């Protein structure tokens, strides 16, 4: 009750003040009619009440109320007097005060940046809608610690900018970025790394810092999945750091090697996606892009270790094989073979032989490709790599198959089958069993055809026999038949050949 009365009292004292300014300027100078400057804020938090107001209140109130008012006065006097800034700080939000502090000291750029970040976050949140992950993330303006540190570093940076000390600007922004990186605030750390990059690119003779910034921006982009932009940054980094042996990262790594490592990783990643694309549908353009990429990869690897560059060479050769450019592929494969031989890498030699065989096959040099495959088998046997051996056998099988040497082919296929079955690799076993079947059938075709063309009793019975008891009959029949068939050919004339052969091939085919 007393409170409301007091409010009305205050209102009543307030009312005439408004009249006075309107009622003319000549009177306004009179002290008596001057309004007391309105106390900002609510009545309770205001310790500083003017004497006149107090006396008016005391006069108007009755005894009980007087006591209450007096007690309140006492309590207020115990509180310290607050300055205008302090009351404002009490009234405003944390963010508001922080911004005011910055602006008051003249740090307008820092304020703008902070404001921009906050509005950006808000906009992103609004765009994502209330169902998204972003919606539940705390707003920047409510995170006091982050705001404090941002204020500190940004103000330092702006101070440095005013003095023209770009190095210090960079340093501050960099530590801010690292601070947010440590917190897992990716978008913030990305922003500050980007500004680091901007600052260092403006600075003269600051290639070292530029490199560092490029590296971090590149990494951030890679994390966001913007691989090509990241590659661009790292390529710049590579160019800049070339020949600078003095520049080292915190862990003591040379910048140039660092760039190479990052580039290698990115190139490999991109190459892998490209390869996947190629597997799905063979496109010459993607292939050619892939090869340029891999060439770059080789360059980036020039400062890395041998095994990796060998790997890249192999991939490059494979890409050329895919593009059906056998000559270039062979060139790279030979390089790869040399590398492998030097490092006594049997698996590598095997792979090289295999790929070379393919390349030779493309060129139409079957002999060469056979040689390679035989070597592959040798190597694989020597090193005891059963899977590789199985693959080699299968490849040999293909070649023999294509040359029409079906018995050899089926031999190798059956070997491949048994090998892969023992290794428990079902897919390989299945494919080799199918191929075994094909080569076997192809081998049979010759004999069956011959028998079909030769009418007479003997071939007919043999075919029937073979039909009844598949495998055994076939093996025997080939060797035995040659002689008897020829004899039959001379004697008998075709009589009723039309009805039976038409029946037989159809059953054979099925």
């Amino acid at each position, binding site marked *: 009750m007393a409170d409301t009365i007091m409010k009305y009292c205050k209102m009543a004292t307030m*009312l005439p*003040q*408004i009249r006075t*300014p*309107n*009622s*003319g*300027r*000549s*009177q*306004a*100078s009179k002290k008596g009619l*001057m*309004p007391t*400057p*309105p106390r*900002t*804020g609510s009545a309770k938090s205001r310790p500083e009440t003017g004497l006149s107001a107090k006396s008016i209140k005391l006069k108007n109130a009755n005894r009980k109320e007087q006591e209450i008012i007096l007690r309140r006065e006492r309590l207020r006097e115990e509180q310290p007097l607050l300055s*205008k*800034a302090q009351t*404002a700080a009490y009234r405003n939000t944390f963010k*508001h005060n922080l*911004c*005011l*502090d*910055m*602006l*008051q000291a*003249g740090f*307008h*750029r820092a*304020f*703008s940046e902070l*404001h*921009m970040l906050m509005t950006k976050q808000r906009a992103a949140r609004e765009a994502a809608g209330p169902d998204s992950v972003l919606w539940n993330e705390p707003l920047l303006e409510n995170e006091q610690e982050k705001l404090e540190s941002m204020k500190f570093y940004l103000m330092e940076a*702006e101070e440095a*900018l*005013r*003095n023209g000390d770009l190095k210090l600007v960079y340093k501050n922004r960099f530590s801010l970025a690292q601070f947010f990186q440590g917190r897992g605030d990716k978008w913030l750390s990305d922003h500050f790394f980007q500004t680091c990059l901007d600052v260092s690119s403006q600075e003269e003779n600051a290639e070292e810092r530029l490199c560092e910034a490029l590296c971090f921006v590149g990494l951030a982009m890679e994390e966001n999945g913007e691989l090509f932009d990241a590659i661009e940054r790292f390529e710049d980094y590579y160019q800049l750091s070339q020949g600078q042996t003095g520049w080292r990262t915190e862990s003591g790594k040379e910048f140039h090697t660092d760039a190479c490592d990052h580039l290698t990783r990115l190139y490999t990643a991109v190459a892998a996606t490209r390869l996947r694309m190629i597997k799905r549908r063979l496109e010459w353009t993607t292939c050619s892009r892939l090869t340029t990429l891999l060439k770059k990869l080789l360059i980036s690897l020039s400062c890395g270790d041998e095994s990796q560059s060998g790997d890249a060479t192999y991939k490059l050769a494979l890409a050329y094989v895919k593009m059906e450019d056998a000559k270039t592929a062979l060139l790279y494969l030979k390089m790869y073979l040399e590398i492998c031989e030097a490092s006594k890498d049997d698996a590598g030699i095997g792979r090289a032989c295999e790929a070379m065989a393919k390349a030779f096959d493309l060129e139409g040099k079957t002999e060469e490709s056979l040689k390679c495959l035989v070597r592959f088998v040798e190597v694989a046997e020597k090193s005891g790599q059963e899977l590789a051996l199985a693959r080699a056998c299968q490849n040999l099988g293909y070649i023999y198959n294509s040359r029409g040497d079906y018995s050899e082919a089926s031999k190798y296929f059956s070997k491949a089958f048994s090998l892969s079955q023992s290794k428990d690799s079902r897919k390989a076993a299945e494919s080799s069993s199918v191929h075994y079947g094909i080569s076997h059938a192809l081998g049979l075709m010759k004999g069956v055809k011959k028998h079909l063309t030769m009418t007479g009793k003997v071939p007919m019975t043999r075919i029937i026999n073979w039909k009844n008891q598949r495998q055994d009959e076939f093996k025997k029949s080939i060797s035995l038949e040659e002689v008897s068939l020829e004899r039959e050919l001379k004697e008998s004339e075709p009589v009723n050949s039309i009805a039976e052969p038409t029946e037989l091939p159809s059953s054979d085919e099925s």
Partner: protein
Amino acid sequence: MSINPLSNPKGVKLLCELCQKPAFIQCTECRVTYYCGVEHQKTDWLGVHEKICQLLIPLRTQLPFLTSEEERDNRKQWLLQQKMDLIELTRTTGQKLLFEGKHDQAVPAALQSLKFAIDVFGLASINLVPSYLILGEASIGLGRLEQAEEYLMQANWTVLKTPECSNAIKSKLYRNLGLLYAAKGDYDEALRQLADDIYHSAQEFGTDDIRTAGGYYHMANIFFRKNEMAVADSLYTRVIDIWHKHLSGIIKVRTKTPLVARGPGPVFDDEIEEEDKLDEAQEAEAVQVLNAVLDIREHTPSDSWELVKILHALAMLHFSLKTLQLETNTARKLWKSHQKKKVKNWKQ
């Protein structure tokens, strides 16, 4: 005991429009406005009365007797609308006079607008604040700081009591308060108020709007007076950047070649870009700010690039204001500094 002039009807106290003292003369045009002397009448006439003289008649004469409820209601509505229009009119008049630097003439208009605003909205309404602000600014201009403080505090109090008050009004209020403290020489407090101004303005318009630039400019002036040149310099640069960008935008729209018809048929100009024109107040502000900064830059050793940028902005401003003489002058200056400093890659 008060003396009533015999010529007046008994019981009616005629008060001066400006000072509320007993009035002795009457405006012959409208016959509803009274003054204590010729001096006040003249001031009022120059300030605002010339514009609103005839509009005051229906408001101040006695209501005609109307028989039906409906008619009375209509009459009421009409009067209210009339008052609202008057508030608007008097405010713009006051504002314009302020920007022209005629602080003393702005006072009657502002008082008039305040009177109507109180009449329509009541005493504690937020709608009174613009009038208070005009009054405050005029008082600062006239050097009556105590009075200015009084008005601004009143505005401040109203704003504080109205939590839903818009950022634009707050920004304006804090800017005026900042100017007040600056005039008083209390630079720290002035900075605090201007910071508040920039904060609210940024909330409303963004950090790089020309409406926010005013805050930066005043702040720069204070730092300049405090002799903190580095800060002032960076703030001036910022102000110039903002204006330069804005003016470039305007010029770009204005000098855009219109589409030429290709073949028969009408031209379909789909994207007619709306040119964001400067209003009177902004024009005045631009002229003032740019010239002031130019003056400072010319008298202190500064980056030639900055100077060229200001001159370019000024030239664009004069172009958009169509003040050809000044434009050519500025362009000549620009050309000179261009020659002298050999700034490369400068497109004119």
